[in-house]
């Protein structure tokens, strides 16, 4: 038994019973596709189709199809890579760090957030492959024996560290996510009427039967995985920031980068989780499970990490002046007042100013404001990476090579490709797998639902008519 203080808001509303939880979440998996789902799927396939064309051009003709030039060698590719990896930080953060901190509100959102993480990291990986120009030689980034007398990779290079960090993160995230899915897949298997569905979910659920012995070991695995994933999640964006911080480019050569990147990653990841969960909650009618309390908790994290990012921007600027390095100072003045001023000020407005609205409880609990700001935050975080990468490069030490970077339609198309891929994967997930962790929600039902199951059953037995404990007007 666990005790939850009565002043805490319940995490599951509308007096749901265990059977209700199973039914509400399995319904979407078992029902025929919703027309809105079909429409959304069509749009994402359209984006994927257009993106596939530009991706074909990128790979067939090479990265000369992009707007790169000899001064700016990294632009949209690495911007998009860092952006997607950042988004891919929320899922494992929610399921690992919030598990260690015993934050029960994670139970309703961890499944979808972890799925989103996996798809975001795959999108990030696709930009790594694209920017190589010759993706068929991608295995050269691995330390494999080869015919050049075993010419190995350079383990002093942060790009090699990145290969290990991203691939480990992707693998561990998939394993963590799938471990969480096994009990729920068993629930779907036991409900399946169609023999094909029963066979597929049967194979996917690995003969799970929920025995006490298995559950005890399963909980141990979840705890140790959370303990391993916590430093992992922090290490991934740290290592991504090393890609920049270990170089000697003014604007990149900064010791503040690791914590600053990690905070930014959590910031954008939570924003993306909110964007997706608000839509899922609405389309699948999950208001009883993803409550205003959940949304408010996520907004608090956005406010915290957004403010850390804001402090990092100001610190960077201050240190650029205080260090007395003229190249560093110029780089920062050029960011704010040079030809890319609009990107810098978009970043500042979206990332530093907009989350400050969340100091107000009424804003944190307003669904429309939250949805709008969740998109604004991700626009801001995209500009952050663009500003860091492009403005540090486009005016280098030799003024004769100063230039501007402008994207071509292939740059834009490759970005659209990643959106198409991300949303196609997410919609497939939302249709064929349970979007909320059924077992974990049931585990908090008794201590944190309104009214509790026992009370409800007693009332039903006594013939009392149930009234919903939440106020629908507050939605």
């Amino acid at each position, binding site marked *: 038994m666990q005790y939850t203080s009565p002043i805490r808001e319940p995490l599951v509303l509308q007096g749901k019973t265990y059977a209700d939880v199973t039914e509400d979440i399995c319904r979407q998996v078992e029902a025929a596709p919703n027309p809105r789902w079909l429409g959304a799927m069509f749009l994402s396939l359209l984006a994927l189709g257009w993106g596939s064309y530009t991706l074909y051009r990128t790979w067939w003709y090479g990265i000369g199809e992009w707007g790169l030039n000899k001064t700016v060698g990294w632009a949209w590719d690495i911007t998009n890579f860092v952006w997607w990896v950042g988004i891919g930080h929320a899922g494992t953060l929610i399921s690992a760090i919030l598990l260690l901190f015993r934050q029960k509100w994670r139970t309703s959102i961890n499944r979808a957030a972890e799925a989103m993480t996996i798809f975001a990291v795959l999108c990030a990986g696709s930009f790594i492959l694209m920017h190589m120009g010759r993706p068929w030689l991608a295995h050269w980034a691995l330390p494999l024996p080869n015919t050049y*007398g075993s010419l190995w990779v350079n*383990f002093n290079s942060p790009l090699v560290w990145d290969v290990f960090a991203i691939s*480990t993160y992707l693998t561990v995230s998939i394993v963590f996510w799938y471990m969480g899915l096994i009990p729920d897949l068993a629930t779907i298997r036991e409900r399946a009427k169609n023999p094909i569905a029963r066979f597929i979910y049967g194979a996917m659920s690995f003969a799970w039967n929920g025995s006490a012995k298995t559950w005890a*070991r399963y909980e*141990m695995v979840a*705890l140790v995985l959370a303990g391993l994933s916590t430093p*992992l999640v922090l*290490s991934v964006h740290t290592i991504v920031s090393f890609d920049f911080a270990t170089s000697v480019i003014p604007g990149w050569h900064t010791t503040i980068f690791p914590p600053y990147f990690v905070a930014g990653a959590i910031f954008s990841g939570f924003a993306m989780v909110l964007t997706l969960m608000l839509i899922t909650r609405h389309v699948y009618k999950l208001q009883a499970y993803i409550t205003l309390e959940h949304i408010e908790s996520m907004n608090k994290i956005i406010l915290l990490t957004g403010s850390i990012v804001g402090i990092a921007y100001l610190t960077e600027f201050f240190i650029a002046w205080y260090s007395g390095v003229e190249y560093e100072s110029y780089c920062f003045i050029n960011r704010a007042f040079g030809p890319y001023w609009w990107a810098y000020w978009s970043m500042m407005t979206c990332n530093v100013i907009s989350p400050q609205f969340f100091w107000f409880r009424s804003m944190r609990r307003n669904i429309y404001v939250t949805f709008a700001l969740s998109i604004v935050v991700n626009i801001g975080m995209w500009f952050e990476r663009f500003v860091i990468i492009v403005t540090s490069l486009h005016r280098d030490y030799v003024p004769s090579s100063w230039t501007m970077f402008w994207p071509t339609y292939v740059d834009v198309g490759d970005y659209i490709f990643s959106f198409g891929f991300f949303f196609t994967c997410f919609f497939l997930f939302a249709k064929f797998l349970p979007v909320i962790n059924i077992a974990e929600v*049931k585990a908090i039902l008794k201590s944190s639902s309104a009214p509790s*199951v026992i009370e409800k059953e007693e009332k039903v037995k006594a013939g009392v008519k149930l009234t919903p404990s939440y106020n629908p007007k507050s939605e």
Partner: protein
Amino acid sequence: MTKHEETHKFLVGIFNDEDILIGAIKKLQAAGVKLHDAYTPYPVHHLDEYLGFKRSRLSKAAFLFGATGAILAATFQSYVMGIDWPMIIGGKDFIAPPSFVPVTFEFAVLCASLGMVATFLVSNGLLPWKKAVMFDPRSTDDKFVLAINLADNKKIEEAKIVELLKANGAEEVNTKEIKKK
């Protein structure tokens, strides 16, 4: 020659709530009934302790897998950079331990998590081609199921166990034949 398949007969008590289940487990154990296992829709804390299962050693396994990974990665990097093909990079030592920290850490985490999960799945028989042994399909939905193997309880009459189950809150008591392993 077809082998005669032997089965075990189980009594299956079905409960509506985790606390009623735990109460019944204590009462049945006090009466000397040996319990097989319980099946619940979600992890019920300390249920394994009530049933007398030992603490899992998976965390130790994870540590060993992780340590192996860390040693392998550190050794491999030192061999590649220091012995097999030494190159001067940025004036660093050939074997520059700070440079090896990220890959060593990542590989240790990878080995620990994959190793532990694989151990867990194999040792619990959780494999895609296996068929689940379900005492009651509702135990993945909203029921808490307690299974008692009659072969373990030869000294106690079946009717007595059924009575104990019902007296301690079981909604239903069924029997189920399960093939011997």
